[in-house]
């Protein structure tokens, strides 16, 4: 067990280093931050001075080493554009992104699981076919189109919900939450739908496939033969077995939702980490970009690690081999 965890941890560190290196190499191709930091009329001399100040004139290896040693201590430097510590800026936006992802995940589960069950139980029903086709559309329409459509319908035409921002937030310690105010909750609805819609279709199709698989298995047949009610068979026996892989996938999807919240945050001006990253890209704000990429990598690594450990706990075969 301990050896397994240590091996996993070492692998994670390697992955993080690789991500940092790739990110760092990428920055060589996004342009010179000095140009966006100085006014148009700055002289060549001013540009050179700033470049030296930022250490951008040093070799890449030196810059990379400095970055990694800083990142290990949680120091990501000062944003080129906002002149604030990057760690602080990310911490400030983390709650917005996490609340959005949480809301979207809950929305996806609440809608996806029941629809999946329904379509599995009534595979030939008219409603099931409509839902299946609907899910195809949901999976293929680009999310920003969904977002713009939602804004057009619910903000511009119906005037029910705000089209941008997070509404009023309440501060609990360092965490800012939009869950406690009316405007905060109203602001959350459209972005959560946009971010969750793809997951709804994914979960629904996954639940449907798994459930149909389980319904064909022997133990369900035996349960039916024992004369149990449909209800007891479907929800008491089949559903539980269906949900295991679903939970794993949803867990893994959480990571990608954090990463893909970028698009939703851009459309709705949601003040989260994705928005911060997008702005940093257009400004070539290297400290912010690198910190964001490392953080997203960390989230993925952490989730995968937890999943691995869960498997380890659930599946005794793994511990035998170890």
């Amino acid at each position, binding site marked *: 067990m301990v050896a397994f965890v240590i091996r996993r941890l070492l692998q994670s560190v390697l992955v993080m280093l690789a991500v940092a290196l790739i990110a760092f190499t990428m920055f060589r*191709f*996004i*342009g*010179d*931050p000095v*140009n*966006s*930091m*100085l*006014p*148009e*009329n*700055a*002289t*060549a001399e*001013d*540009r050179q001075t*700033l470049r030296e*100040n*930022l250490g951008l004139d040093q070799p890449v290896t030196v810059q990379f080493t400095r970055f990694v040693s800083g990142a290990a*201590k*949680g120091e990501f*430097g*000062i944003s080129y554009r*906002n*002149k*604030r*510590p990057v*760690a*602080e*800026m990310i*911490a*400030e*936006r983390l709650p917005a992104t996490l609340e959005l992802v949480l809301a979207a995940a809950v929305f996806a589960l609440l809608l996806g699981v029941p629809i999946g069950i329904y379509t599995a139980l009534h595979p030939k029903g008219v409603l099931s076919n409509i839902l299946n086709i609907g899910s195809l559309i949901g999976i293929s329409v680009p999310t920003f189109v969904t977002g*713009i459509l939602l*804004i*057009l319908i619910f*903000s*511009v035409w119906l*005037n029910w919900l*705000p*089209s*941008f*921002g*997070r509404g*009023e*937030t*309440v*501060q609990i*310690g*360092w965490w*800012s939450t939009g869950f406690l105010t009316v405007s905060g909750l109203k602001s959350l609805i459209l972005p959560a739908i946009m971010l969750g819609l793809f997951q709804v279709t994914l979960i629904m199709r996954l639940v449907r496939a798994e459930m149909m698989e389980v319904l064909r298995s022997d133990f369900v047949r035996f349960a039916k033969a024992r004369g149990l009610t449909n209800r007891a068979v479907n929800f008491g026996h089949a559903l539980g077995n269906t949900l295991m892989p679903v939970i794993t996938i949803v867990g893994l999807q959480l990571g990608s939702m954090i990463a893909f919240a970028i698009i939703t945050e851009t*459309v*709705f*001006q949601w*003040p989260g980490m994705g*928005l911060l990253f997008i*702005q940093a*890209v*257009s400004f070539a704000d290297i400290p912010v970009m690198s910190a964001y990429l490392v953080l997203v990598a960390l989230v993925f690594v952490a989730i995968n690690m937890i999943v691995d450990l869960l498997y380890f706990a659930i599946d005794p075969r793994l511990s035998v081999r170890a």
Partner: protein
Amino acid sequence: MTFASRLTSGLAATAIAALMAGAAGANTLRMADSTDIAAMDPHSMTESNTIGFLNHVYEGLVRYNQDLEVEPALATSWEFVEPTRLRFKLREGVNFHNGNPFTADDVVASLERAAHETSPVKSNIPGMKSIEKVDEYTVDLVLSGPDPIVLNYLTNILILDQEWMAEHDALLPADMRGGRENYAVANSNGTGPFMLESRQPDARTVLTVNEDWWDEPEHNLTRIEFSPIGSDATRIAALLSGELDFITPAPLQDVGRIERADGASVIVAPALRTIMLGMNHTDKLHNSNLTDKNPLQDVRVRQALWRAIDMELIRKKIMRDMSRNTALLVAPPVPGYSEELDVLPPADAEAAKALLSEAGYGDGFEVGFDCPSSRYVNDEEICQAITAMWARIGVDAQLTSQTPSKHFEKVLAGGADIFMVGWATLPMLDSYSVLSALLHTKGDRMGAWNPGGYSNPELDALTDKVAVELDVEKRNAMMSEALKIARDEVAMIPLHQQPLAWAVRDGVNIPITADNKPRLWYATIE
């Protein structure tokens, strides 16, 4: 500090601000811009949208009015006591938002801070040698040489409170090396018509009216709520749904849609920014079938390229009739502009072809063409149109469009053959900006944006004279002459002044100014 302790300490500061409720009163102006202001510290960056916004909180010694003329602000009068010593009389009875009186010490501390070695804005006050306090309400600005446009520069150098900076250890500008945050980056204390109430980066910045303002307010606002909205579609939707009163910019392709909608309208004006094409004047092209010579060195070729571009068509089809075509490298409000020089002959592909044959390139040639994407209004579309127009005269332009930071990196490194660049002449609002940065032979202090290596001794000499000439008439004449040389030699190809479009809800009046900085102390809400 560790990540965790930053987390707690940094956020405590914003906690109170976030709690403030946004009670929208009758005279609240809710506005959105495409980008958030970078920071509250006016000496931490030079982005014009940030400086424009901060100008509501902080003020300079002088300011531009609605017609972009310099007028007194924190200084009431000024005179050159020596050619290099400019004496300012300061306004008395002005208080900062925290109640501290405004005095000469504040001016000295602020200008020293702005011109400090590590200050990112020091290029915006290049001629300053030192600043000296004469008495409580008089200061002397000592210049390194005669500087005819020092006042224009000073409109952009905003004044902070010396005591407040000293108290919070913010007397020096933010230093990138130190890795330490400057107090003024997230807090403010100015003398302007509005005060900072709260700020949540990327979400909302709220200003309230300063009842104690020294000037007679022409506005009737009590509160300004600023939100950045990057997505064009969302910004317009928020205006049309009534969540906003004022947006900048209004994308050109949506102007018609806003006009058709009830309750909102667009205000359009030609901007100061002139869009132009720079060229490689060196011996060799980077991206061409010709390896032994550079056709762009021949003035006839450059003329042919210019004549081949049908700006009228671009104005109608791409700019929706809202741009202003130009034959000069500066816009009409910029000193040095001359109406009689600004004559653009109609595009003529035949004449262009004839010029090319005359120069010995009748069969055309290949050339690299670099364009930024989404830096200027419809920049990529314009470049694509020009590429097609050049193809008609046999010039095969290899178009590369990329992000602005990438584009300018390549351009400034001298790696482009023909490249698009836009120049607003801000903050100096003077042709000298174009002459010194774009046209003067490249050197340590001049020609920073002349990577193509254009060099004309006559133009250089005029530019150097313009830099120190204090007589306005003479100076303007010299600048016009220099611009004429650039035009006749086709040092760069001028295209147009791009349009500036804002949109407001009915009942909101905001004067539009060519420098794209809303001045809300002139705004009224009915």
